[in-house]
C-alpha cells in the first residue's frame, strides 16, 4: 500500500521529524518597500514571498466592481528555478490558475471585504523554492502580507497539509517527497481560533474511518502555525511599529 514507508520503526519520517511535527517556519513581515504589505515565509525548504497592493481603485473593467465589497484578486506564480525540473511557464498554466483561484477563495473568507466597497485588493505570491506544501506556505505568507498592509481580517487564515503514514498514522505538514510517495494528501485552510474551515482539498484515497483523525491533525497543524505567525506579527509591530511608515533608515555598510 502506498505510504507504507513514510514512517520508520522509531516513528521518524524521511527528514527526521516525528508524525506530528511541523517543518521549521521562518517568516518576516515588511520585506519590500514598493507594496503596501509584504511578507517572506519559509516552511522547511519551501520559500515563498507575498506582496499586497491595496485597497485601491478597481483597475481594468469597472463592471467588475462590487457595490458592497472589495474585489480580491490573487496571482500565484512559481519562479522557473523553483522546482527540480525547470518550470517553463511561471504562471498562466492550469495548475497556477487553479492555485490562484483557491488562494482567492480562502483569503476572501478571512478578509473583511465589506469595509472597502468598490475597491480592489491585489495579492501576489511568488514561490522561490518549492518543496511541498506550496499552497499552504502561500496562504500563510499572504495572511502575513495582508496584516502588514493593515487590511482588517476576521482572523488569521492558516493552511496546513496532512497525510497518512503506514496506513493509519496521521502525518502533518508533508514535504515534496512525501507528497509524491503516493500516500493521501489533505490540504486544509482554516480560521484556527474559531475552527472554521474555508478550503479543504484531498487527493489519493483512504478509508472513511481515518478521515476525522487526519482532518484533526491538519487543524492542529493550523493552530500550531497560527501561534508561530502570531508571534512573528507581534514581534514585527514591536520592532518597527514605532518607526515612521514607509521610511526605512539607510544604514551605510
Amino acid at each position, binding site marked *: 500500500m502506498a505510504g507504507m514507508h513514510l514512517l520508520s520503526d522509531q516513528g521518524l519520517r524521511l527528514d527526521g521529524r516525528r508524525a506530528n511535527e511541523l517543518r521549521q517556519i521562518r517568516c518576516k513581515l515588511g*520585506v*519590500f*518597500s*514598493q*507594496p503596501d504589505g*509584504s511578507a517572506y515565509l519559509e516552511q522547511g*525548504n519551501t*520559500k515563498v*514571498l*507575498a*506582496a499586497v*497592493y491595496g485597497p485601491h481603485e478597481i*483597475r481594468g473593467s469597472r463592471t467588475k466592481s462590487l457595490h458592497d465589497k472589495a474585489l480580491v484578486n490573487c*496571482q500565484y*506564480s512559481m*519562479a*522557473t*528555478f*523553483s*522546482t*527540480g525540473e*525547470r518550470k517553463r511557464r*511561471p*504562471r498562466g498554466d492550469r495548475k497556477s490558475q487553479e492555485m490562484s483561484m483557491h488562494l482567492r477563495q480562502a483569503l476572501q473568507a478571512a478578509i473583511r471585504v465589506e469595509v472597502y466597497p468598490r475597491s480592489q485588493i*491585489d495579492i*501576489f*505570491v*511568488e514561490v*522561490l*523554492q*518549492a*518543496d511541498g506544501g506550496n499552497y499552504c506556505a502561500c496562504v500563510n505568507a499572504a495572511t502575513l502580507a495582508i496584516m502588514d498592509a493593515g487590511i482588517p481580517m476576521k482572523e488569521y487564515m492558516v493552511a496546513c497539509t496532512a497525510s497518512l503514514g503506514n496506513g493509519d498514522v496521521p502525518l502533518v505538514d508533508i514535504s515534496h517527497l512525501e507528497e509524491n510517495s503516493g500516500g493521501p494528501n489533505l490540504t486544509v485552510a482554516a480560521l484556527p481560533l474559531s475552527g472554521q474551515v474555508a478550503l479543504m482539498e484531498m487527493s489519493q484515497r483512504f478509508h472513511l474511518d481515518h478521515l476525522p483523525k487526519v482532518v484533526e491533525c491538519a487543524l492542529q497543524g493550523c493552530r500550531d502555525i497560527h501561534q508561530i505567525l502570531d508571534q512573528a506579527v507581534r514581534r514585527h509591530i514591536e520592532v518597527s511599529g514605532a518607526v515612521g511608515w514607509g521610511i*526605512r533608515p*539607510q*544604514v*551605510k*555598510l
Partner: protein
Amino acid sequence: MAASYKTIHPVKYYRDFLAQNVRPDGRSLQTFRPVSINVGSIKTAEGSAIVKIGNTTVVCGIKAELAKPKAEEPNFGYLVPNVELPPLCSPKFRPGPPSDQAQVSSNFIAETLTNSRCIDLRDLCIVSEHLAWVLHCDLICLDHDGSLLDACVIALVAALRTVELPHVLYDAEAEKTVVSAEKRSKLKVHSEPVATTYTIFDDEILLTDPTNEEESLSSGIMTVVVQGDKLCSVHKPGGSPLTDAQLQECINGAMKRAEHINKLINTALKSHET
C-alpha cells in the same frame, strides 16, 4: 507638511533638496546605496544569488538543461537570460505578458553577456554537434526601487560564479546520456561586468544610483557597464543630452564602483564556500 508638498509638486520638492546638494534620502548626489549580496540560497537551482541595492531586490536563479547545439554553431552551448518584472515588484506593472521594460531589460542583459564575453559558450558544449548545456538565467525583480539593471547584472554574475555543472557521459552510438549525480566542475567565468545607472535631472544635474522616484522624475537615464579596467557598454536610451565631461565623470565613477562590487561578490562567494 512635507509629504503633501511632495505629492503636489514632486519636481519642486526635489529641486529644493538638490539646491543644497543633497537628496531626500540623505545621500549626496554621487553616493551609491549600500549593496548586499547573498549567494546559493535557492537549492533547487544550479546557481543562485539575491542582490539588494538599497531597496531594489533582484533574485537570479540558473537552471541547466541539455540540448542539441545549433547546426551552424556545433561547438557552442546556450546562455538564455530572462528578466521578469512581476506585478509584485511595483504598482507600475500589471499582470499579463512581459511588459516593454522587461523585454528591454532582458535584451540588455543578453547583450551585456555577449559584449563582456563573461561566459565562453564553448565551455558549455559537451559533445560537439550532439550535446550542449543550456543555462537558463532567470532574473526576477522582487522590489523595484531604481537601478534595476545594476542589480540584475550583479545578481547574474554572482549566480554564474556559483554554478556547478554535473559531469555528463554521452554515448554517441547508443545516443544515451548519463548525468553523474555528484556535481563537480565549476563554471568558468572569464570576466565580471558591473553596471552603474545614472539619471539626469532637469537637463543638468547628474544623480548616481537613482531610486524609483528619482528615475520617474528625471529627464534622462544612462547605464554604463565596465569590466575590470575596460569599458564594456554604454546604454543611453534618449533623454537629455550629456556633455563629454559629464560622460567621462560617469565612466570614472562606474570604474571605481566596479572594484568595490567585485570585492563584495568575492566576499559573498568565500563565505558561501565555507
